């Protein structure tokens, strides 16, 4: 082993890529550890695909360098990199059989025919596609093509496997199943994965760590729960999951957290796990919908009283989703607040109805205070 498990295995240092006047990737630095699944998450045009293509060698960085396992790869052509890629379209060669497709990479290494056949057989076994070797790509279903593409990219045992929207082309049922299979294979082979996706759910379940990209920059790196529970900016909070965001002003700044008044919200927010913002600063409070409790007005708490982390409103819309329900509540301040509630009981006796007055509250640890 050349590097300790925690040290950077893939190192992207200050990489930028410009296409004419357009900056697709803007001074990105990233460290990726050996054996992890790192997800690059971002909307279209965020630069995630360009970054991936630079790692594969299809684009050359305008500035900066890319190292893998201590080797500078910034200017190495794709066919000399120990990196393989699974394309979004799978890019299976239509004129070659599954076996030929998977064996193509090994052929380029001038391996003997027997060695190629053995290795192709092994990897097809792993992706559960033994017996399909003679088929042509158009004779396969979408899920089968995905597995052949995976096998083709893995058969050379690359130091790094790049996956471009690996599940995007599959239907919902197949996606879930494939997701776990992908994790399974990754653990079995120990290859480092970088996954590009625009689907937050996919990123959260696949990734050991995520990098969120926006406008060519990495805006936050962390574990899925880091990013969901402690977003670093309004963009990240809003991009991943849904969130209620309110502008406010810091009125107290103590050891037990921040106190924020918000005219939009119409109450004082006490955020226990927040610090650093100065008195009087303008900030944004982010509260996830599932962290808000909802109860009938009058049942508990004083209706209309100025309380911390407690606000009154009227239910305007209810969307029943089966496992949970979404409530849209118009606060007395006029703003809308979104609350989700799991449907714990089957056929609750008297559920909250539209136009009912409700009280909304949350725990002091729930609000996240954002300055940008």
């Amino acid at each position, binding site marked *: 082993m050349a590097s300790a498990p925690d040290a950077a295995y893939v190192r992207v240092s200050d990489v930028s890529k410009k296409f004419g006047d357009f900056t697709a990737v803007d001074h990105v630095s990233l460290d990726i550890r050996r054996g992890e699944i790192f997800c690059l998450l971002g909307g279209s045009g965020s630069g995630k695909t360009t970054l991936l293509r630079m790692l*594969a*060698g*299809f684009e050359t960085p305008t500035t900066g360098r890319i190292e893998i396992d201590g080797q500078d790869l910034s200017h190495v*052509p*794709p*066919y*000399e*990199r120990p*990196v*393989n*890629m699974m*394309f*979004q*379209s799978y*890019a*299976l*060669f*239509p*004129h070659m059989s599954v076996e030929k497709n998977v064996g*193509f*990479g090994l052929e*380029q*290494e001038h391996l003997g025919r027997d060695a190629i056949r053995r290795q192709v057989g092994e990897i097809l076994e792993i992706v559960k596609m033994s017996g399909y070797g003679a088929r*042509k790509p*158009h*004779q*396969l*279903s*979408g*899920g*089968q093509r995905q597995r052949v593409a995976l096998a*083709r*990219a893995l058969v*050379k045992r690359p130091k790094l496997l790049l996956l471009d929207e690996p599940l995007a082309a599959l239907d919902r049922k197949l996606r879930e199943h494939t997701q776990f299979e992908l994790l399974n294979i990754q653990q079995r082979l120990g290859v480092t994965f970088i996954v590009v996706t625009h689907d937050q759910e996919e990123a959260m379940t696949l990734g050991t760590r995520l990098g969120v990209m926006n406008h060519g920059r990495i805006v936050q790196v962390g574990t899925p729960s880091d990013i969901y529970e402690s977003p670093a900016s309004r963009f990240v909070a809003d991009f991943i999951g849904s969130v209620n965001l309110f502008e406010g002003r810091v009125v107290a700044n103590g050891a037990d957290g921040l106190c924020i008044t918000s005219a939009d919200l119409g109450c004082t927010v006490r955020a226990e796990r927040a610090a650093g913002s100065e008195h009087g600063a303008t900030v944004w409070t982010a509260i996830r919908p599932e962290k808000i409790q909802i109860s009938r007005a009058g049942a508990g708490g004083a209706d209309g009283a100025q309380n911390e982390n407690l606000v009154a409103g009227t239910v305007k819309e209810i969307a029943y989703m089966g496992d949970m329900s979404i409530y849209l509540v118009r606060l007395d301040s006029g703003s809308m607040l979104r609350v989700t509630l799991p449907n714990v009981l089957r056929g609750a006796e008297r559920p909250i109805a539209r136009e009912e007055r409700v009280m909304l509250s949350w725990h002091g640890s729930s609000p996240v205070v954002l300055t940008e």
Partner: protein
Amino acid sequence: MKPQGLLTRIALALGLVFLYVPIVSMIVFSFNNSRLVTVWDAAHSPTLKWYGVLLHNEQILTAAWLSIRIALTAASAAVVLGTLAGVALARLGAFRGRLLLAGMVTAPIVMPEVITGLSLLLLFVALGQLIGWPKGVGAVTIALAHITFCMAYVTVVVQSRLAGFDESLEEAAMDLGARPLKVFFRITLPLILPAIASGWLLAFTLSWDDLVITQFVAGPGSSTLPMVVFSKVRFGVTPDVNALATILVLLVATGIAISTVWMGYQQRRRERDLQLAAAANL
């Protein structure tokens, strides 16, 4: 059947009659005994007389042989040049001179033939004066001219076929360790082979059929088949030309019929495979 559907179907049927009446009449009269082409000599027809006359016409046979040789040369060279141009336009991205190449490639398709012919002859004359080559016009200059206008068609066919293929196929091959030249021969070339084949056939037909450009760049002693036919029919209808037309139509029709049947078979096989794959998914 809705009335408007019926109307367009009638129009289609009439249109097809319009397209085929002249061809059928040539075929029918090729078996006519009479010298007066359009008067059916019922007493002595049908006859293969004119086919015999045709096959003993030295001039037509020589011209046909020349036309075949030129068409083979022109189609083969045009396929090479046109494939290069098609690959350059579809795959090299924004290179210097792209606009120039793109413009020059489609221009011969839309350029009136008389202008192409005139300009090429003037070039050959100027070159002959300047560097002493070509010495005169003939088979070589005809072939050069045909290559030039045929390559334009091949380029368009190859380019649009390449445009229909995801470039990630070539990237995938490169990602798996194949160098650019190998990528071309293992991936790109097999994929565009159908386009190259149809481009070749198209080029062959265009070269074989061309009259106007050829007239400009041909010299004495290098008459192609269309030139001989043109000089014959300019002064009236001759029955052996009917026989020639019949032979050509039959050749082309068999070729096209075979390829249509074959493509239909491929299509059906493909559909069956897709059904199999879908069934495997359940």
